[in-house]
């Protein structure tokens, strides 16, 4: 078995046992990326030199007995996470030449944990999309079927883990951008509680919704990466005081007596029948393992997508104002200052980004603010309150992650509404800042289906524990894409 087939936990064990060196591990993944990524197009930038340098530093830690749970295990980063000296594009032409002079907080944390950074993965431009088709460079492909999308916006990060080009990756999740591609690629994706992972260095999309999170082949790997990147950061005012997530007890949970809420709104007609059946089958299995399920109604879910498409674009319209070609990135010349800005932004932002900037600008305009933005914030509060209410009684809210399995590249371009509805199940967690995890629960039409578990704010450890016991309860090993 080649090194790249090992999951993160196994790799870490081999590294600690000196069965393999950090350099060998990194080289194995780099060489696999070089030979195989042409099929998946998951990376925008590969940093072989940096990864090898990181590997040597990791080896030094291991040799000095200072290695942690993931030392020497490489990670791929979504290309909206700033890396000092390494191009960070957000898959946008407007950042084509941008090289940050600083590391994101999570990158500093990865360096401290001894996790080499393999490179930067593809995404929908500025994380706006659910298929990776909005990348200004190229679409990424789903390792389960390369004619299909890997999901998005963290599609490159999901494809890289699924195709075994990286054992772990980081994504960012504003409305489901970690969990949905994880679901479509058959891996685990976790969005921690808002504020447990610093956003410093994550290029902002919807600041009140954005959260960096880990992706891995199983819950344990994912939990270890969550532990490595979480913690309070003085550079992020929204960082929580007791932000650190511990993975120490992730394997201690049991399904017996665990209570899950099944919102009927997330098992309704919007959900593809095959997906629903797959999740229901999994629920039956888990029931036999001692878990309890109860149908509930969380009616505000119906307004989730609408609310999301006001708040996220509104924040984005302001967050993306700094891309004016003055201080970084390419600049196109026009008439005067406003002409330069219009030309730069008009030509270098993609259509979806421009659409959302316009929607957001409109929603914040005088005279519309109350009707849109303010109202959306009220609905958001209502939605959060409904979920919080169910957490009084239930350990987690359970549903499918995505209403559909992976779909053909270009298959939904004529149906943008359908593409936006894909976030239907994942959006509530962002609205309330809740921790939420997607894990594989079976196949529909030979394609992976994800199960979504959402827990209360700061309940990350417990949610990971629950997810681990669900993974065990479903009673099967990690399923690789057939092509591998």
């Amino acid at each position, binding site marked *: 078995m080649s090194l790249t087939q090992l999951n993160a936990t196994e790799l870490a064990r081999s590294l600690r046992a000196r069965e393999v060196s950090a350099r060998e591990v990194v080289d194995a993944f780099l060489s696999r990326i070089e030979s195989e990524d042409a099929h998946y197009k998951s990376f925008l930038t590969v940093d072989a030199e940096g990864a090898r340098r990181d590997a040597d530093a990791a080896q030094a830690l291991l040799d000095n007995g200072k290695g942690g749970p993931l030392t020497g295990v490489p990670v791929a980063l979504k290309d909206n996470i*700033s890396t000092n000296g390494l191009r960070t594009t957000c898959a946008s032409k407007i950042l084509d030449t941008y090289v940050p002079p600083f590391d994101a907080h999570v990158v500093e944390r990865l360096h401290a944990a001894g996790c080499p950074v393999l490179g930067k993965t593809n995404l929908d431009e500025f994380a706006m999309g659910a298929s990776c088709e909005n990348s200004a460079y190229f679409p990424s492909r789903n390792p389960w079927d390369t004619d299909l999308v890997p999901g998005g916006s963290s599609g490159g990060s999901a494809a890289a883990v699924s195709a075994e080009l990286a054992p772990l990756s980081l994504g960012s999740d504003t409305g489901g951008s970690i969990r949905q591609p994880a679901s479509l690629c058959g891996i685990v994706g976790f969005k921690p509680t808002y504020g447990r992972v610093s956003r410093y260095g994550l290029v902002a999309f919807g600041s009140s919704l954005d959260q960096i999170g880990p992706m891995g082949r199983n819950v344990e790997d994912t939990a270890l990466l969550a532990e490595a990147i979480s913690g309070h950061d003085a550079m992020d*005012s929204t960082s929580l005081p007791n932000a650190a997530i511990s993975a120490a007890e992730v394997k201690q949970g049991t399904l017996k007596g665990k209570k899950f809420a099944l919102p009927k709104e997330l098992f309704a007609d919007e959900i593809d029948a095959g997906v629903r059946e797959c999740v229901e089958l999994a629920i039956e299995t888990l029931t036999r393992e001692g878990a309890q399920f109860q149908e509930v109604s969380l009616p505000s879910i119906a307004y989730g997508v609408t609310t999301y498409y006001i708040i996220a674009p509104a924040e984005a319209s302001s967050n993306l*104002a*700094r*891309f004016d070609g003055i201080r970084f990135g390419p600049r196109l010349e026009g008439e005067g200052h406003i002409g330069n800005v219009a030309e730069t932004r008009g030509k270098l932002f993609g259509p979806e980004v421009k659409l959302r900037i316009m929607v957001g*600008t409109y929603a914040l305009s*005088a005279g519309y603010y109350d009707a849109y933005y303010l109202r959306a914030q009220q609905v958001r509060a209502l939605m959060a309150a409904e979920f919080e209410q169910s957490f009084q009684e239930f350990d987690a809210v359970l549903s499918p992650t995505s209403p559909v399995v992976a779909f053909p590249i270009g298959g939904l371009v004529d149906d943008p509404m359908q593409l936006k509805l894909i976030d239907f199940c994942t959006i509530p967690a962002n609205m309330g800042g809740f921790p939420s995890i997607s894990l594989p629960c079976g196949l529909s039409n030979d394609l992976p289906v994800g199960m979504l578990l959402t827990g209360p704010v700061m309940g990350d450890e417990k949610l990971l524990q629950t997810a681990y016991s669900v993974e065990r309860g479903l009673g099967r090993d990690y399923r690789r894409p057939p092509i591998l």
Partner: protein
Amino acid sequence: MSEYVLSVGMEVHAELRTESKMFCRCPVAFGGMPNTRVCPVCLGLPGTLPVPNRAAVQMVLRTALALNCQVPAHSVFHRKNYFYPDLPKGYQVSQYGETNPIGYYGYLEIPKLDGTTKRIKIRRVHLEEDTGKLLHLPGGGSGVDYNRAGVPLMEIVTDFPPDIEDPDEAKEYLVQLRQTLLYLGVCDGKMEEGSLRCEPNISVRLAGAETYGTKTELKNLNSFRAVQLGCMFEKKRQSELLEGGSKVVQETRGWNEQTESSFLMRVKESEQDYRYFPDPDLIPMEFTPEQIEAERAALPELPLAKSTRYQKDLGLSPYDAGVLTADRAWAEFFESAIGQGGDAKQVCNWMNGDFAKLLNEAGETALTSGEATVGKTSKVRPGHIVELTKLIEAGTISGKIAKEVFGDMFTSGSMPSELVKSKGLTQISDPAEVLAVCEEVVRENAGQAEQYRAGKEGLFGFFVGQVMKKTQGRANPALVQESLKKALETQ
């Protein structure tokens, strides 16, 4: 010409005297090479986040309380969205809303010439960040210096309808506001460096008219005088327009210091929509009643209150009290001297006279500083001045010698009594000794004595001068008068 009345709304921006910028740790300073005090945060690089400067928040809270404002339990930062090259993020972090700013619905009292005071209502005191500066490059084109970008800025806006109704009030408002900010130690008040910027909104209307006229906003006013002259000029300009049947156009005008006139900068075509919304990167500031009361209790006595007290309790003139209280350190120096037993009037005269003159000559900025620079940079302590006045009072030295002693102690820092002793400056008050000198002078100047006795009384001063010369000024002046007369008459 009909009678027109003036209305002035004042918008003041004060850069806060914090060590670091509002949302990052870059140092705050004036001047220097462009873009040397910048970091990813204040350059607005993608992915960076703001962390509020607590000292800045506290300074605005203190100012709000000093200006008698209400303080909300929660105060939110908003984003003000617009594109301009000097604005790194494409939005300015500011504060929006009627009752959201750290301070709202306050007032500032200003003194009137007739000895009364007038209350100028304040609508808001809020915290925001400064922008960068556009620079024209020598080789053509423009550059942006972001050193100033992100410097904490406090905005203080007067209420509408405006209370300020003449150019003197406009100036006095600014004088009082600046002194208050200096007393609070929140701003260095350097109008010429732009750390205190004032933009009056000026309109006129026919006397008795109910509705306010169209306003113009005046910029580039970097002195009190400019504010006064600017308001006068605009009043005249606008009145003449209206009198001639024209309309005042809502526009931003600049002030030309040389020609003492305003010029058109830009016409405000429509209200720009800044799309304010709460900044999701920042959590609301919270102010507890305990915190507010603690800050209020710690406020210093403000200049106008101090000045009134000096006049009432110490019998000082409005002018003297005004000069003493214009600077907090200066007032504290005075109060310390009084506390050590100095006579208010005497101490005041020495401070506002010789001391101020020597400080200015030495290039000290005692009269314009906001901190205890007197204490820090001058060797003269309150105790020196008190001792000096006591030496005069006791007749140990004359007023003339005292001036000399002041100069010495200003340079050396020695106590006046030591200087008097070491230099032998003690006044000669022994009548016999003084008389002996006088007789000697009269003898030596027999011719002049003759003329004096013949009726040329103007020569008396000459003899006084000779006596003083002989005694190096140490002879008791009253005694000299007396003894000279005696000597001239008896010889």
